[in-house]
């Protein structure tokens, strides 16, 4: 049943990308356990506004765990203590009355803090832009049923394709590695016949981009797996390595170029 609790929220405040940040603590009472974590932050922000203070900035959009906008470290865990959930799916019933909750932004060199809990994850877009696609154009294609895909393969592809790009894997990784994110896309496309054609070029370009964004290397610790709200498995990273080795024996990638008119 729902009840009201009091919590102390110790949250990271940083005015801008260049500013130095620090923690600031707030006491909140009358927090319903039915509230989501982000609704608790909404409540805090209303309180701050009334006191004439600057609200805590954080990203959030769909609030049902699919858009990947939200994300922060809660008591040292990416997306908080609940497994397989984003911050917006975390409810206050996961916390005890009187508990102190430490809230920090994702921390990685490749994810610079913009303000408070808001970070810049555009590095992920650049990794996808380096080959996370099948190079087909809009238009007429063969009928969708011409190329058969075994049910099991489609399911495996979906297991990794459901990555929401939230960045929790990077945030949780002791090395700040983006291997789970990158591996998920490489694996998704390498599993399907449509994506196999350019698999070699894709894996080389995407992993190069991952490195040049300044992410760390993977040391197979697997904290990313525990943090991933979609519970993507180690197989995504292992299969990325397989594709990498296969790709290394393929022809070197041609110079990236536009095929546009």
């Amino acid at each position, binding site marked *: 049943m729902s009840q009201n609790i009091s919590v102390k929220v110790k949250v990271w405040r940083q005015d801008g990308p260049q500013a130095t940040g620090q923690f600031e603590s707030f006491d909140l009472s009358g927090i319903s356990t039915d509230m989501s974590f982000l609704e608790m932050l909404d409540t805090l922000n209303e309180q701050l506004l009334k006191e004439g203070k600057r609200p805590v900035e954080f990203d959030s959009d769909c609030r049902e765990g699919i858009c990947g906008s939200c994300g922060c*470290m809660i008591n040292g865990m990416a997306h908080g203590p609940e497994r397989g959930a984003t911050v917006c799916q975390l409810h206050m019933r996961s916390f005890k009355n009187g508990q102190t909750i*430490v809230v920090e932004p994702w921390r*990685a060199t490749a994810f610079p803090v913009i303000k408070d809990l808001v970070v810049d994850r555009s590095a992920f877009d650049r990794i996808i832009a380096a080959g996370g696609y099948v190079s087909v154009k809009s238009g007429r294609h063969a009928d969708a049923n011409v190329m058969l895909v075994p049910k099991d393969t489609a399911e495996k592809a979906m297991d990794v394709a459901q990555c929401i790009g939230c960045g929790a894997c990077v945030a949780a990784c002791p090395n*700040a590695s983006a291997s789970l994110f990158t591996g998920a896309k490489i694996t998704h496309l390498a599993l399907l016949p449509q994506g196999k054609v350019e698999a070699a070029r894709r894996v080389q370009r995407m992993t190069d981009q991952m490195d040049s964004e300044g992410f760390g*290397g993977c*040391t197979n610790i*697997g904290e990313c797996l*525990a943090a991933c709200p979609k519970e993507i498995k180690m197989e995504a990273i292992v299969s990325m390595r397989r594709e990498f080795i296969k790709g290394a024996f393929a022809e070197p990638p041609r110079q990236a170029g536009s095929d546009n008119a």
Partner: protein
Amino acid sequence: MLPKIFSSSVFKKILMSLTGFGLVGFLITHLIGNANLYRSGSDPFNTYAAKLHSLGPILEVAEIGLLGMFVLHIVTALQLKFRSRNARQDRYAVNASKKGPSKSGFISQNMALSGLLILAFVVLHVKQLHFGPGMDAGYVTNVTGESTRDIHRLVVETFSDPLNVALYVAAMIVLGLHLRHGFWSAFQSLGLTCERSSKALYIASGLLAALIAGGFLFMPIWIYFGVQS
């Protein structure tokens, strides 16, 4: 200029795995050879040592290869470590593992530390035994019909010092922990596992680490307590 692939962090992990496997291979042969210490008397071990040295140039090539792998393993590890350091310059005030599938822990997060400890041990170990007092210092025996180095005596003398015993035992524990994560990790880095084999390999890796570390670890104890004679 080296091909671009050599600078890839994925390639570096592959290199770590391959050299790691090579080093594990060495450890296993080293352990099998040294198992002669568990046999009674000094002859079996000295005979093994003499035979090994009679290989001449083959041994030298193997030693250089081993050294190469060792150096490559360390240099690559350090490169990766620095990459990780740079990847997160601001640390978290609070950090905790979400457990579950995570293998996060002191060991898996401190492979570089355990690696450096092992390096320090290896330097000491090689200095003490490989480059320790030889035939000109009077450590001479005759097991194959000609005079060879009495390495057995040196080993026994070394392990009569409880400090050395403690040091070696500690080093072997560190080695075991390093292998515990490292051996399994190497399979992952080479893309050789699937979901089920990964679990089995994780257990196998634990067993292998225990076997190697345990096999070496009991030698100094065995000798110190004079079980052998």
